[in-house]
């Protein structure tokens, strides 16, 4: 199963994301922001970083990169897409996910091992977790405050589309402690913390992030 990882100018975590795909047993494929076409991948990861220098708004320019035409199209027809950190911002700017991410309420960059609760296991990226599982992933962002209007937040919670929530204190001002959400179909997931940095024991806070990648491989094999 091939999982593509897009590199934008300013992406930082594309190599770690490809590595996590490989550790999970998949074939990682490098995708380039300036190319049209997805090289026959079965799923796509939009990695963390500072695409286009975060100019204008985080993710606002990456959203219009050539490769995003195909990513948006594929996401709408059901291909699994995971946006991590800057990738989450790109998914919101692309309107594949509702809401937006704004500057942390305390104005400082946050970088820490962050406990989370996995609240939805019915997405393509979280099926291998136990519902309610408490995991620790790296969180590192300056603009990670998730915002949406109350009606949208109520709908996300009512439909079980809050994928992960922060535990032990809110690190960035995200409304209702939301760390990640999915679209209605569950194939598109946006997540502020970094599962790709918790994919092997040698570095990072453990391997709690690996199931994001094994989940999608399982979903693709089953499909």
């Amino acid at each position: 199963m091939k999982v593509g990882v897009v590199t934008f100018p300013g992406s930082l975590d594309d190599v770690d994301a490809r590595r996590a795909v490989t550790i999970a047993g998949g074939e990682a494929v490098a995708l380039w922001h300036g190319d049209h076409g997805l090289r026959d991948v079965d799923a796509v990861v939009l990695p963390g970083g500072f695409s286009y220098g975060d100019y204008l708004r985080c993710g606002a320019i990456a959203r219009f990169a050539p490769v995003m035409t195909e990513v948006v199209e594929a996401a709408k027809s059901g291909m699994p897409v995971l946006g991590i950190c800057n990738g989450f911002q790109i998914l919101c700017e692309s309107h594949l996910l509702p809401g937006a991410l704004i500057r942390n309420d305390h104005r400082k960059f946050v970088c820490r091992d962050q406990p989370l609760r996995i609240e939805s296991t019915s997405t393509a990226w979280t099926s291998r977790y136990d519902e309610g599982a408490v995991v620790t992933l790296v969180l590192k962002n300056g603009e990670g405050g998730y915002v949406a209007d109350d009606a949208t937040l109520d709908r996300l919670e009512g439909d079980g589309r809050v994928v992960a929530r922060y535990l032990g204190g809110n690190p960035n001002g995200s409304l209702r402690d939301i760390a990640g959400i999915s679209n209605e179909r569950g194939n598109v997931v946006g997540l502020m913390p970094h599962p790709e940095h918790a994919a092997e024991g040698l570095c990072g806070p453990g391997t709690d992030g690996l199931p994001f990648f094994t989940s999608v491989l399982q979903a693709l094999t089953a499909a």
Partner: protein
Amino acid sequence: MARVVVDVMLKPEILDPQGKAVHGALSRLGFDGVVDVRQGKRFELELEGDVTEERLAEVRKAAETLLSNPVIEDYTVRVEQQ
């Protein structure tokens, strides 16, 4: 040439940490009597030829598509007389 100015501001209900930081700095510098600060963005678009209603409609579309994120921001468009 004509200049069209697009001002983009966070919606009133969205927290503005930058504005808060500026507000705090103003107070520390002794600029009293400032109750609140909101920080926005200003874009100056230089257009070829005259500004027509059609051109303005296009600028509004650009403001909605790229210059602002309608989920969290409002924008205004005005023609600057030169």
